[in-house]
Structures are given as structure tokens and as C-alpha cells.
């Protein structure tokens, strides 16, 4: 009997520990005043104020120049910092819940040319991992499928939603492609040396992708009968409504990818990863190709590399005139995406101004994802997706968030984790 009660208790607490309820739409106007406002475009307003109503920003400027009476609610944030909600590009948040549990893994469909595979419909708006982004200021993400040559189509979502339709900020914003590697790994189980060696199929693999896109283009120009789902899904690439995110790291591969896009008539491309992008920064800058720079928290790609290269990459590229954001992908990427602000901070430590580092995950990310009209900066007319931090949000010591708004909605900063924290703090406190 005692056990049964215990089990019942566990079940109840598990229900209690379910995800946070999405916040209701903004009904009263809000003014946050007295704070340092990090606009997201590289500038700062000291002692500023931000006002918003119906989910949109209505005022940004000096705290002394605003008429507080115009707002129903005024939040005093003197000494605090306001940032636009941070945006994680190339993320698999909501597609996998627990890495080691296959049943929770929906990030990688079988097949290789899959532009018709759409991440959005698998996005789990109730993921416990997603909600854990919010207390760190990461409020939006580009949810991206993995695997294959063309992995599929991503969408940009915000992180406080009942379902994927609610979550969507921009549906099917981009198609993602894994550029072939000119090197390949030896297969030790076949008696091969496990190191890297030239991939003799490199050209063939590129040709395969070009062939697919050319066929798709021809299909789209015709009567499209019978229907071909993969070809149809590439439409946006050719009419300029979708970007092609090319996941590519090597200097040679990046160069080949840029030439490929020109040949294929794809205007809007983005490099994701770009480990050696600094070696071809001129090419990228002159073609206005942005780079979603691999996170700094990774090991250098070779023993010979400057051991701080991964930390220097964003600054090297930015100085060369390349528009940059941050790619959080890699080992344990989902749960680690809450460290996105600290990735930016780490880039700042190695040759980048702090506000420029903020820009990486705000305005630049929004521009690259094509959502900069809505989000990315604290400017009037844009979504009131922003948060208040006790201090510098790029530094873990001071990234302490007291309030966060998505589209003006006052979202919960509780998570599965904070609830456990409180539960056990209370347990010990009661002793």
C-alpha cells in the first residue's frame, strides 16, 4: 500500500514536472526602463527604455525621453541589461529528446537527396530540452534536419508554443546541404588505415547533387506532371524565396561550393561550419556569403593548428567583412545550445568587440535566416522577443535572466530543471 502511494506520488509529480505552459498573448502594454539596451546591431543605449504592445516593440530609446504613462506596466530595470532574444541557427532542438534513446530521435531521415523532408512537423514544442534554452536567453532557433547530401528543409521557430504551428516564425526558410568531403575516412573494419585520405568519389558526389538540382530546375519549368516531391521542394532555391545552407568546412570544399552555387543558379547561399573559412574569407566576403561559424567550444581540427583557432574564427571572418553567426552543432549540441551566449562570449575574448559578439546571435542570425524584419534587434515594429539580464548575458557569471518575452508574451523561465532544483532545495530547507 505504501508503495502504491509512493508510485502514485511519483506519477503526480511527473505530471507536475511537465513542460511550462505557453504564455498568453500580450494584453497590456509594457515598458522596461533604466536598463542598458543591447540593440543587437552593434550599438548600445545606456539608461534606455523599451516599450511594447500587442507583441510589437513600440519604443526604443532613452529612459528619460519616454512617457511612462503611455504604458500599463512599467518595469524598473536600472543596472540591468536588455537583449534581443538570441537565435540558434542550424539547430536540432525539438527533433531529438534523449540522444541515446532511439525512439526519441527524429533528426535524420534515410535517403540522400531530401529537400522535401521538413523539420517543422517533427519539432516538439513541448521538449524539456527546448524549454531549458529560455533561462539563458536563447529564445528562437532554426530547426534543421541532419544527414544525407540534401538533409531537408528547416524552419525558424520561437521557443514558447503549444505546437509547431504556433512555434513557426518562418516556415521552410532554407534547404540544408552537406557538401561532399574531398577527404574520406578509412574504414578500419575493412583493414583500411583509419586516417583521412583523398575521396576519389568527390567529383562524382558533387555531380550527383548538381544533376539533381538541374533536373529539379527543368521539372519546375515544365508542367510538373507527374508530381515529383523532391524536385518540387527545391522551388524556393530558384525563385529566391529560400536559401541554401551548405554545411562545409574545408577551404577547398568551400571554394567548390561557392562555384557550384553560381553554376546551379542559386543566389542565396550560406556556409555552415566553415572551419577553414578564414582561409577563403576574401571569396566569401566578395560574394556576400555569410558563415554560420562552428562553435568555439570544440577542439582544433588538427594538432598543428593554433590551439585557439576555434575561438578566433568568428573574429577573423568578421574582420574580413563576412557576415557571421554561430553554429551550435556538434557533440551534445541540443542541451549545449543554451550555451550559445557563452559561445559568443568566447568569440569576444579572442578579438571581437562584445557588441559585435552579441550581433552574431541576434541581428546577424536573423539576417541569415531571413527573419530580420521580425526579430534580431530591439527596434520599433519588430517582435517584442527580448529578455532582461542582471548583467552581461555573454558571461556565465552574469547571464541571470529575470524576465523574457517572446512576441510580447511574458514567458515562464521555469524548466524541468528549475523545478527539480526548487523541489530539492525545499527538501533540504525543511530539515
Amino acid at each position: 500500500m505504501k508503495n502504491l502511494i509512493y508510485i502514485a506520488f511519483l506519477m503526480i509529480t511527473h505530471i507536475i514536472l511537465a513542460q511550462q505552459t505557453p504564455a498568453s498573448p500580450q494584453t497590456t502594454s509594457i515598458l522596461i526602463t533604466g536598463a542598458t539596451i543591447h540593440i543587437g546591431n552593434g550599438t548600445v543605449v545606456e539608461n534606455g527604455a523599451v516599450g511594447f504592445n500587442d507583441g510589437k516593440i513600440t519604443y526604443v530609446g532613452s529612459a528619460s525621453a519616454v512617457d511612462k504613462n503611455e504604458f500599463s506596466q512599467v518595469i524598473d530595470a536600472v543596472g540591468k541589461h536588455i537583449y534581443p532574444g538570441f537565435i540558434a541557427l542550424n539547430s536540432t532542438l525539438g527533433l531529438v529528446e534523449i540522444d541515446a534513446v532511439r525512439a526519441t530521435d527524429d533528426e535524420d531521415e534515410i535517403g540522400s537527396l531530401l529537400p522535401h523532408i521538413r523539420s517543422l512537423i517533427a519539432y516538439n514544442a513541448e521538449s524539456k530540452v527546448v524549454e531549458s534554452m529560455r533561462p539563458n536567453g536563447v529564445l528562437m532557433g532554426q530547426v534543421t534536419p541532419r544527414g544525407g547530401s540534401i538533409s531537408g528543409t528547416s524552419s525558424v521557430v520561437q521557443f514558447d508554443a503549444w505546437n509547431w504551428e504556433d512555434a513557426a516564425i518562418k516556415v521552410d526558410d532554407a534547404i540544408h546541404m552537406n557538401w561532399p568531403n574531398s577527404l574520406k575516412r578509412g574504414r578500419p573494419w575493412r583493414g583500411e588505415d583509419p586516417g583521412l585520405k583523398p575521396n576519389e568519389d568527390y567529383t562524382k558526389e558533387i555531380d550527383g547533387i548538381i544533376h539533381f538540382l538541374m533536373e529539379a530546375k527543368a521539372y519546375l519549368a515544365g508542367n510538373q506532371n507527374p508530381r515529383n516531391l523532391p524536385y518540387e521542394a527545391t522551388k524556393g532555391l530558384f525563385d529566391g524565396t529560400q536559401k541554401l545552407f551548405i554545411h562545409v568546412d574545408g577551404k577547398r570544399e568551400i571554394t567548390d561550393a561557392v562555384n557550384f552555387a553560381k553554376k546551379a543558379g542559386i543566389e542565396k547561399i550560406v556556409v555552415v561550419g566553415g572551419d577553414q573559412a578564414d582561409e577563403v574569407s576574401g571569396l566569401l566576403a566578395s560574394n556576400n556569403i555569410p558563415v554560420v561559424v562552428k562553435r568555439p567550444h570544440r577542439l582544433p581540427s588538427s594538432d598543428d593548428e593554433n590551439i585557439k583557432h576555434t575561438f578566433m574564427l568568428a573574429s577573423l571572418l568578421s574582420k574580413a567583412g563576412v557576415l557571421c553567426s554561430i553554429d551550435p552543432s556538434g557533440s551534445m549540441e541540443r542541451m549545449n545550445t543554451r550555451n550559445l551566449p557563452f559561445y559568443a562570449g568566447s568569440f569576444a575574448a579572442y578579438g571581437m568587440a562584445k557588441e559585435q559578439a552579441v550581433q552574431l546571435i541576434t541581428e546577424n542570425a536573423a539576417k541569415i535566416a531571413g527573419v530580420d524584419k521580425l526579430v534580431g534587434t530591439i527596434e520599433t515594429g519588430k517582435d517584442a522577443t527580448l529578455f532582461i539580464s542582471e548583467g552581461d548575458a555573454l558571461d556565465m557569471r552574469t547571464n541571470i535572466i529575470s524576465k523574457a518575452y517572446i512576441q510580447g508574451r511574458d514567458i515562464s523561465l521555469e524548466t524541468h530543471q528549475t523545478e527539480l532544483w526548487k523541489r530539492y532545495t525545499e527538501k533540504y530547507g525543511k530539515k
Partner: protein
Amino acid sequence: MKIKLCILALFGCSLSLFSQEYFPQNDGVKTENSNYTAFKNAKIYVTPTNIIENGVLLVQNGKVAAVGSSVSIPENSVTIDLNGKSIYPSFIDMCSDFGILAPKEPQKSNTPQYDASREGYYWNDHVMPENRAVEKFSFEEKRAKELLDAGFGVVNTHISDGIIRGSGALIALNENTTNSERIIAEDAAQFLSFEKSKASRQAYPTSLMGAIALLRQMYFDAQWYEAGNAEGKDLSLEALIKNRPLPQIFIADDKLNDLRADNLGDEFKLNYIIKGGGNEFERIDEIVGTKASYIIPLNFPDAYDVTDPYMANKISLEEMLLWNQAPTNPKVLAENNVTFAITAKDNKKLTDFKANLLKAIAYGLDKTTALEALTTIPASLLNESDEIGTLEKGRYANFLITSGDIFDKETTLYENWVQGNKHVVNNMETIDIRGEYTLNINSESYALSLSGELEKIKSELKKGATKIASNITYQNGWLHLFFNPNGDADKDQFIRLSSLIASEGNLKGEAVLTNGNTTNWTAIKKTSQEKEKETETDEIPKVFPVTYPNKAFGLKSLPQQQTILFKNATVWTSEDTGILQNTDVLVKNGKIASMGTNLSASGAKIIDATGKHLTAGIIDEHSHIAAAAINEAGHNSSAEVTIEDVVNSEDADIYRNLSGGVTTIQILHGSANPIGGRSAIIKLKWGEDPTGLLYKERSKFIKFALGENVKQSNWGASQTIRFPQTRMGVEQVFTDYFQRAKEYSEQWKAYNALSSSKKSRTKAPRYDVEMETLAEILNKERFITCHSYVQSEINMLMKVAEKFDFNINTFTHILEGYKVADKMKEHGVGGSTFSDWWAYKFEVNDAIPYNAAIMHDQGITVAINSDDGEMSRRLNQEAAKTIKYGGMSEEEAWKMVTINPAKLLHLDTHIGSIKEGKDADLVLWSDHPLSVYAIAEKTIIEGAVYYDYEQMQEAETLIRQEKNELVNMMIRAKNNGVKTQAPKVKEDEAFHCNTLIYQLK
């Protein structure tokens, strides 16, 4: 038909075969030959140092009957006049697998095999001292010919499989006899290695450290068995005991494995002869320190094909340096007085062996040493100097006849005699026609140059300054040469020359002209231009200096302790004194000498630390860098293994960790089994060898593990046969092992209490390294750090420990520690956790970043660890997260990566804080050390600067320059026709708790 052919072949062979005197003979009359063969007018290398300029070698019945400058030649002699040619003892390869087939591999299966396949032998299939090469050996004609052509007369062959491989057999490469004569010694040496048998699927050992532990236990078992303590029969141990007087050849194949083998040998007073890897020069001081004899391969890497700059750039400096420096390995060993033999074992082609031997000499290996390494040294290491290795009287008549100095490129090897039987390599009668000629034909004149090896002669033809393609063959005295006189490739019009060469000097013969007419030609030999040719021979390229380790960011010399005075720093003491502003810290003799204001010290290096922060070096309680293997997963307990056996001093992550201010780490065994292996606690003294890295004050630790990894939850569906598969079983593993360890100790205690007379009548307990280790835990001499996730199992392990009257020292990972923090406090265990990892597997669903703060608030000593070679470079940032998650004070947060892990490691009296008298392990930060913007500018261990941010940047520039220079050298090599290999890029695997790799290579 096939069978018939075989019989024919056998029959054909047997006609010429030697037969023993007592064998019946049915194919003719019995004959005996006691004639002598006399070789006169030869320069005879009786030994590498005893050289007779013009002597006679007298051979009878396959042995040297006499040798000297005034040997009288008996009447019943066949006399061969060598006309000034040279005679050398033929070579010995003491590490060969000649004539032994590779073992049959068992059928593949996904289900692991934990038990041995054999009965009556040792419990581990990979231990096979009972194997004898002599029983598996069959004479391989083709391979024998290759070896003879390369100059070898005797090989010590073995079954190249397994950890203990049994005895090798010393075989003469005599083609014209039977094995009964060829076998010089049937058990010449015992072979060992770190590699498992391919013939068995038995899981243990799954790692290098498991192999070392296995060898160690096996030696203890042999001692115990020999003393008559065992109940049953163990044929393996009996063979091991029997093989003990033999030379013990340990195939280590790499500089660090050489040291590992030697360390193991020292424990059991065994002087292994170590087969090296060819990279011994990279750690020559340590190699000298082993005082061992070596067998050295000549496996110099080919130059990389660097014509593609993109690929070229991917080749590591380490690989390029090895290409540049490896040919110096024999020379460096010789200069350091290391005794070594040379083997052809690692040369896929024996022609490479010869080329590399000459290369080693070109790179400075003394010729006498080279000859010794191929003759007298292997003979003496095998205790066979009375039989082979020299041409002294009574030795086997195993010798080479050459045109001159055997280590000269131009020298021809004519014959290789083994046991008095001739093997022709190059026809001695062939007249040397190499030289420069003026070819006159059809009233045209050409310059003709003949060079290269006599049997594979090369021609170069020029008309004036124009090179003309030509083709030459020279065999059985006949020379054939054709060329297109117009030098026009489009027209198939050739002049064909031929000549039967009768003597040296001018050549003459017949020619068929392009029009088919026949005419005569002559080639007038130019007078000696030998000197000019010599200058043409390969110049030795620049050899780069070795660094420690020999790769990017390696050091030319190890950092030295300095007297350093930090002025005006913000000092984070990690002590009760807290954070001190504007403070000076003096470092002397590797210790913190004093702290205060306005300090001065004569001769000190002054570092202005104004605006900077000085902290104690970071300590990572849970690391897997700098190790060659991490998991021994072959058993559910592996307390017998220790990471100390496999510390890898060459890991780039050591340097990278320094760049994040880390100075001390505990390298933990992984989490593949409930009872893991013993830890290595090292200081990150980049450049030191593995022993030099071990912290001398280190305490004894062992890794335990709980949860999904130990019950193999994520290992795949076939891995379900090893106990335990549930958390319930995990508890029983611990209880069982501790109970057994307790009983084991009691057994020994009882046995040791016996009087010596009683002892002699009582069987001694078996010395068990695993049980010894567990007994140390029970005796509170060794501490457990346990990989742990969910609260149930955390609680369980504490209860098991309490039943056996000891405490768990540390729970590492301890993700649900916050749920049982009160119980942990009561038990007295510390926690070493991640700052914010979770959601990667089911058991970390409830992991929260507030864990550290809650445990700390409950009074537990808490550290933040990495378990990851990347994260460990920024543990300062990870510590800072405890401020965000749970509101730790900055001072307490900083302690979580300094004094707290020091406490957990029982090293807090030496490291972990800035206090007078403690080790001067310090980090100078550009900024607040908990800030994301902080950069470690200098990392100091025991007063020596091991990392400097600016020097790292300079080093990177230097790496680029060196690589560029090496690439140019490789291009030049390629243009000179040197063989190249396609670039392959080495990738190091980053180790975590669950990494299963036998040995990182």
C-alpha cells in the same frame, strides 16, 4: 592432377636434399662429401672488427674450417679465387615470421566471448607460451630467396600472434637441405607482444593496459604455479616456466610501448630484448634509460606526395618530421651506445630493407655498427655466438661474397652461402661494364653512361647535349641496347646494339641500323671519373631537431624551474584568505616562497601582473586525455589494470589543457564495467615522458562505475551476456568482489602467520593483483571515485561500502547527487560533477545544473570536472556556471576547480591553492578568471612555465614555416624520383568514459 604435381614437386626436391647419416636411402648409393671449399684472395670480415685484407676462408661440412691470411689449402679443396672481392658473415634477422602461416581467424560474431576457448591451458587464449614455431614452420622457397638476396642467412622465426607467442626457431635459409639441417635451435627465444591473438575472440584484454595487467598476473601465476601451489594442470604456465631461460623478445613496435615493456620486465627482473618501432630517437634518453637491447626495424616512411597543397596542408608536422628524421634512428641509437640488432620484419618489400640500410648509413650510422647489428649482436642476443654471426673457425659457413664494401650503393652482392651451400644473387662472372663511354656507330658519336646495379643496369645516352631515350639489358654476359637515333618519339626507328662482353674496358659489338643494315660499333671507356660520380650521390637533406613531444608545439628543451616574482596581482588563494588585491607572489624552487606586498627577490624574473589575476592551477578530477587506452571492458571487474601503464605523453591535449590553465589531472579509467581500473594522476608537464608526468605525490585511486554504461544499455542488442545487465546485478558485483577481497586478505593473513616450516607444507594462496587492489580499498589505502548518475545506485554503493566498513571517496558525474546530498554528506563522500550536461541518455534526464550548488550547500566537497578533452580547456567557465545556476559565490565557485578537487584527490596539502610552501602551480589570467573573457596567459607547474599564450602564437608561425620547408623537401625528393605515398591524415580520437579503443596509435 594437383596432387600428382605436388608429389612430383616433393620428389623433385628430395633428389637434391641433404639426408641425415642414419636415414635409409633408396634412391641411389650413399655418398658423403668431406671436401673443402677454399675462398682465396678475399677481404674477409671474420667479424665486423676483425678484417683480413687478403685471406683464405676454408669451408668443410657447412662450417668454417679455417680462416686467415695464411691458411694452407688442403688438397681435397675446390678453390675459388675471389680476386679481391669481399666476404662478410651473412645477416641474421632475429625477429621474423618466415615460413609461418598467419593463424586462422575464427568466425565473426557480434556476441562477445568472455571465456577461454581452450582447456588445460591458461585462462586467457591470448597467452600461448606453449606455442612453438618449430612445429608450425615450413620452408618457404620464395621468401627464402628474397631473404637470401637481401643478405640474410639465418632467421629467428616465430608465430606472430598473441600476447605470449611461445618460442621462436632459429632457421638457416639453406635451400638445398631439409629442416633437420636448417634448424639451428628449435627454441631460440620466447616472443611476447601487446597484441591479442587473431585466432581467438576472447574479449579480455580489450585494451593495452589490460594486456599489461594480464602479463603481470601471468608472471605472478607462474611463480605460484612453479612453487607447486596449484591444484590442476596448466600447460601454458608450464611452458612459460620452461621458456624462462630463453632470450625474451618483446615486440613493442613503438617508443612508448618500448618503455612500457621495459617497465613490466623490470618488475619481474626480466631483460626483454625489445623490438622497437623505428621512432626510438624521439625519446632517446628514456630508451637509453631502459638499458635494454633492441631490435630495430628500418621502416622509414616514404615521402608524402605533396603536389596537392590542400592535402599537403593536412599532413601533420608530426608525420612530416617522422619522414625527415626516421632514417637517423639507428644512428641516434648507436651514438647513445644502445645495443641493437636490425630486423627486416617491418619492410613489406626486402628491396626496401636494402635501400633503407644504405639510407641509415648515409644518415650517419657507422658501418661497423651496422654490420654488428646484422651479425654479431643478434647472434649474441640469441646466445648463439658459437654458431653464427662471425666467420671464426667452427661457425656455420654463412657468408656473403660482394664486389666490395657491402654498405656501398655500387657494390654488388654476388653470393650468399648458407651452411656451406651457395645461393647466387648476382653472377660473379658478370663483367662490370658500368662507366662512361663514347659510343661510335655509323660515324656518329654519342656519350653513353652505364650505371646502377649490375644486373639491372641503366643506360643514359646523349648526343651532344640532347638526351636520347634508350633501353638496355645485360644478362648472362649479353648486352642489348636500343635507341632511336633521331630522338623522335613518333618514328619507330631504332638502332639495336648487341655484344657478348668478354672483358672490362672498351666495348664492341654488332648493331642493326634503322634501315636494317648491320654494322659494327665500339664504345670507348673514359678514364676514371669515379670521383665526379661520388659527389652526385644523394646528399643528405637537413634533419630537423627532435622536440618533446616530436610534433606541433613540442619543445626543444624542457622548461626549467625559475625564480619568478609576480608583482601586483589579484591573487585568488582558494584559501580562507580569499581574494587578495595588489599582491606579490614569489616562486622559488618550484614552490610558492612568499606572498605579500612590495616583495623583492634577487635574480627573480619579474612579471608585472597589474590588472591581471593569479590563481592556483586548475585540477581536473575526471579526465581521459593523455592516455593510450581508457577502458578495459573484457571483464566486469578490471581492478588489476592501471592507467599509469598507458600514460601517453605525446597527446596534444596536454598542451591544449595547459592553455586553459589546467595543471593537474586525474586520468580515470572509463565506465565500461562496475569495477574499472586504477587512475593515473599527472601534472601536465608537456614534453616530459610518461613517467615524468606522473605526480610524485599522487595518491591511489580507482574508478568504479554505475548505471547504463556498466550494464551495457547502449552497447547494442548483442551485448547482453555479461553480468550485470541491471542495477540489481551491479550491487551484487560489488558485494561479491569485496567479500572475496576480504576473504583473500584473511587467507594471506593466515598464511603469513604460519611458521616457516608450516608454510613449506601448506599451499600458498595465489597472488591476485585484482584482489590486492580491492583489499587496498578495504584497508583505506586506495580510494574510489565512482561514475554515477541516478540516486538509487548512488545510495546503493554507499550502503555496500558501509557494510564493508569503508567510505566511497568521490562520486564523479554524480548527476543526481542533489537528490541524495544529505545521505552523501552523512557518508562523507565528495562530488565531482559536470556543470550543465544532461539529456544525452536516459539516466541523465534529471541532471540539473544546480547540482553542484545544492551539494555544496549540504556541506559536500564539490568539484567541477570535464570528462572531455575539449571542455577541460575551459573549466574556469564551467566553474562560473555555478554562479548562474544556484548562486554560488565567486570564491566558492573558483574552489570547485582548484582546492576542492585537490581535497577529493587527497592532494590539498600540495596543490590546489596559493599558499606558502605549496607547489607553484599557477595561472596568470588576463581577466577575472571566472569570466568568459579570461585568457590564460601563463601556466606554470612547479615554478616552470609550461605554457605561454604569446609563445604559442609564435610556435604556430614556426610550425607553418617548418611544414613549408618540409613540403619543399618532399617535392624535391619526388622530383628526384624517390617513392612517395599518398597523404593520409592522422586523426586522434577524443576519449570519453565510454571509449573502447585497444590502443591509440
